[in-house]
């Protein structure tokens, strides 16, 4: 399956300058909305869901987050990616009382239940690759980030 269809450079912000996770959400959701991947209700729904079910993932060194929300706010499946200039705080998915510093945000717009299982599993695989995450976090341009993710997801 071709995962690269879901990867769009125009939905990437590198470096992403954000003062908080919600600030980061606003910037990342802008592209998703502008290109018609999500409805106007998406951003608020992501913020609300993040408060109820945080998505910060402690991967060991470079932490990531995968904010997303219910399918009714999505028009077409897509993913926005932000490599933060400075990490922002997220609550930890497995224990919301703990906050972690997140460096890379993968904001997911999922349209149907189980629509992209192979893609999601592939993405989760990236979180387990510490070298790749370090490499991603060091990127300073969208094109370099895009190329790296493209090759990581293609193999």
């Amino acid at each position, binding site marked *: 399956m071709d995962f690269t269809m879901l990867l769009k450079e125009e939905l990437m912000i590198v470096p992403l300058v954000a003062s908080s996770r919600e600030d980061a959400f606003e910037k990342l959701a802008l592209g998703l909305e502008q290109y018609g991947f999500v409805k106007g209700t998406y951003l608020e729904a992501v913020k609300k869901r993040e408060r109820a079910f945080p998505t910060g993932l402690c*991967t060991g060194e470079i932490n990531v987050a*995968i904010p997303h929300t219910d*399918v009714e706010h999505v028009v077409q499946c897509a993913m926005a990616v932000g490599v933060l200039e400075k990490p922002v705080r997220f609550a930890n998915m*497995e224990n919301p009382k703990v906050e972690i510093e997140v460096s890379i945000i993968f904001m997911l717009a999922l349209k149907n*239940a189980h*629509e992209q299982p192979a893609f999601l599993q592939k993405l*989760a695989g990236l*979180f387990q690759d510490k070298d790749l995450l370090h490499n991603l976090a060091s990127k300073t341009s969208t094109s370099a980030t895009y190329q790296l993710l493209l090759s990581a997801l293609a193999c």
Partner: protein
Amino acid sequence: MAGEKRILVACGTGVCTSTMAVNKLKDALEKRGKLKLVKINQCKIAEIASMASDNDLVVATTQVSAKINIPVVTGTAFLTGIGVDKVVEEIIDHLKI
């Protein structure tokens, strides 16, 4: 197969992190020759309470606040790769498979 144990994999929306976790869980169980002993389903966290009685164990990627009478195991290890073996052993212990 009759008598197979039922595992419910749950996350906030029922579409994202539970999907990420399911395959890793299947791989880990397969590696131990236990995959054929279980049936795995996915749901939203909000659905756990109503589905618990039809299942033997919950693997959740987020915190479960609902009071249910089957074991709940945290499944974020399947996303981060950290501590997977320990979680799988815990699941196998709970299910006695």
